[in-house]
């Protein structure tokens, strides 16, 4: 065991990538499209990840942090990220123009178990920035529509201006192969055409076969409890309820320890956990 030789690429070595497009989704959340500079690696990296995985993005001398990938591997070529200006690194990221470089490592994390979701009904519940990782899985499911049963996407935001991918979801609402329901807590603009209220109000539209449904939730921590209650009412088993969590991470590979919860490393055993994990690992939520 101790004499084995390991021939590996250095997983700490970042890959140079170019910001090819960016625009604001809300007043503090920006959308970034990023392309790996090394032509030989572009296709492999952007088509082989799983929805729900994350990348470590860094700017030299500023820092490195994990970001969920919001694009889908079914549309390779670019990585997309949805980033809120909240700390040192993201503030610096917001200063970068198109054609600037950032550095990526990854993808890391377990991602959503897409292979276990095939043939099942899918129920997504997104709140606020939680739409970022869920968009990846939603687009993946829509791009491979025949692999899944019914699909419901419920999305809540504080106000219409805080809703991520607002226009994109408006267009998706027009599709008739899945149901997309949007809600806002309040509407200062006065022109919001859809529902108002908390996201759990949207559950009355949901008609799924609970036992054969994969439910996915991502949003602010306060939301989980109420949404999970609704999932359970629908008869969805604990191990088919998925949530993706946030933690501080420095390596992404189960080494630095900073994302540890109980004995699980969020970066390798997560960030996607089932309700069963949450019930059994103290401190996950």
């Amino acid at each position: 065991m101790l004499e084995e030789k390991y021939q590996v690429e250095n997983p700490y070595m970042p890959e140079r990538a170019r910001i090819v497009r960016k625009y604001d989704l809300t007043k503090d959340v920006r959308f970034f499209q990023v392309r790996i500079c090394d032509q030989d690696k572009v296709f492999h990296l952007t088509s082989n990840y799983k929805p729900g995985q994350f990348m470590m993005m860094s700017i030299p001398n500023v820092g490195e942090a994990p970001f969920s990938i919001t694009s889908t591997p079914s549309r390779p070529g670019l990585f997309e990220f949805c980033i809120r200006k909240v700390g040192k690194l993201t503030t610096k990221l917001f200063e970068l123009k198109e054609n600037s470089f950032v550095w990526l490592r990854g993808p890391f994390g377990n991602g959503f178990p897409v292979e276990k979701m095939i043939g099942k009904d899918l129920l997504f519940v997104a709140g606020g920035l939680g739409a970022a990782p869920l968009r990846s899985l939603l687009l993946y499911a829509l791009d491979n529509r025949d692999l899944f049963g019914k699909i419901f996407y419920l999305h809540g935001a504080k106000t219409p201006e805080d809703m991520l991918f607002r226009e994109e979801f408006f267009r998706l609402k027009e599709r008739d192969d899945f149901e997309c329901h949007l809600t806002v807590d309040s509407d200062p603009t006065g022109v919001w055409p859809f529902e108002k209220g908390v996201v759990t109000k949207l559950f009355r539209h949901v008609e799924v076969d609970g036992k054969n449904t994969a439910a996915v939730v991502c949003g602010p921590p306060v939301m989980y409890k109420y949404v999970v209650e609704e999932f359970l009412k629908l008869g969805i088993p604990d191990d088919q309820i998925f949530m993706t969590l946030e933690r501080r991470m420095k390596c992404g590979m189960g080494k630095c320890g900073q994302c540890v919860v109980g004995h699980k490393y969020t970066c390798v055993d997560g960030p996607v956990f089932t309700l069963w994990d949450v019930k059994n690992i103290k401190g996950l939520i």
Partner: protein
Amino acid sequence: MRVLKLKRENFLPFLKGLEKWGELWGPVKKGRGYVYAKAEPEKFELKALRTLIPAKKFFVPKKATILKFKNGEWKEHQEVKNRVIFGLHPCEIHALNIYHKFYTRLYPDPYYVKNREATLIVGLSCIPDDKCFCYNTATSTVNEGFDLFLTDLEDKLLVWVGSPKGEDAIKGLTHFLEDVNQKDIDDYISWRKKRDGSFKLEVDLEGMPEIVSFSYESPVWEEMGEACLSCGTCTMVCPTCTCFDIEDEFDLRSDEMNRQRFWYSCVFREYSMVAGGHNFREARSERLKLWYTHKLVGFMSEYGSPACVGCGRCIASCPVGINILSVVRALRKEKTDAFWKRMEVKNA
């Protein structure tokens, strides 16, 4: 395993002979304690038990540059030196075996792997003191993870050859070594009896994973948290602690950026803090609970044994007496004379 005999008078020449393999490091006296240092073999303290900082520092250094950024490119950076590390006791070697499993699983750490390959590990037997309890953690003897292991029988030493690397290292030194005879074996057996009989401390770790799990809401954590200084000493001196942080540092002299990896501690306040300032473990008690849960429960689930090797470093180092012994006793609701138990609990 091949075992050879080394006469006492040949001990120092034998160690010097290993210098062909690499720089010679071993335990030397510093202040009131011991440290692993590069030194002449005459300086090595054969009776030293625990060094202040464990041997993990040779494999993942306290602080090291892992990448350099210059002219728009990242380049790998590591200074690897061939080193012979002498004087590692069985507990230390067991800790390194845990370290090895940890650093080579999933994404093998290239820096660790290179350092490990460049190191010759020469173990040394010991007689326990009042802080040793490797007998309770089943780490008082060692079968793998060393290249050579010396058992000190006063007038002679037995040399166990534990790896092909060790075999290579003693080529050219065979004139110092002899085959063992029945007398040597008998001497070893009586030494073992004496050694096994000299443990003074007993820490009952039986059933600890369950007890720690059941004690999640125990007031013990609050009491400890009240006393804990969040200084991080326990994690720095623990031979199985692995956590680190990574930061970029600008080097003004060379116009380079250094990405540095340095030891970090789960008892530091910022450990679980994410961007925006939310802290998943704001309370000191929460962070201590994480440390002990990870040692006694987490490793058990992942590797089948607790991540405590009974070296006694936390017992010798924690300024407020929070250590594996006092925690285990408190969780077992046994009498403990721990300093923090005598403190009046506030805000509990």
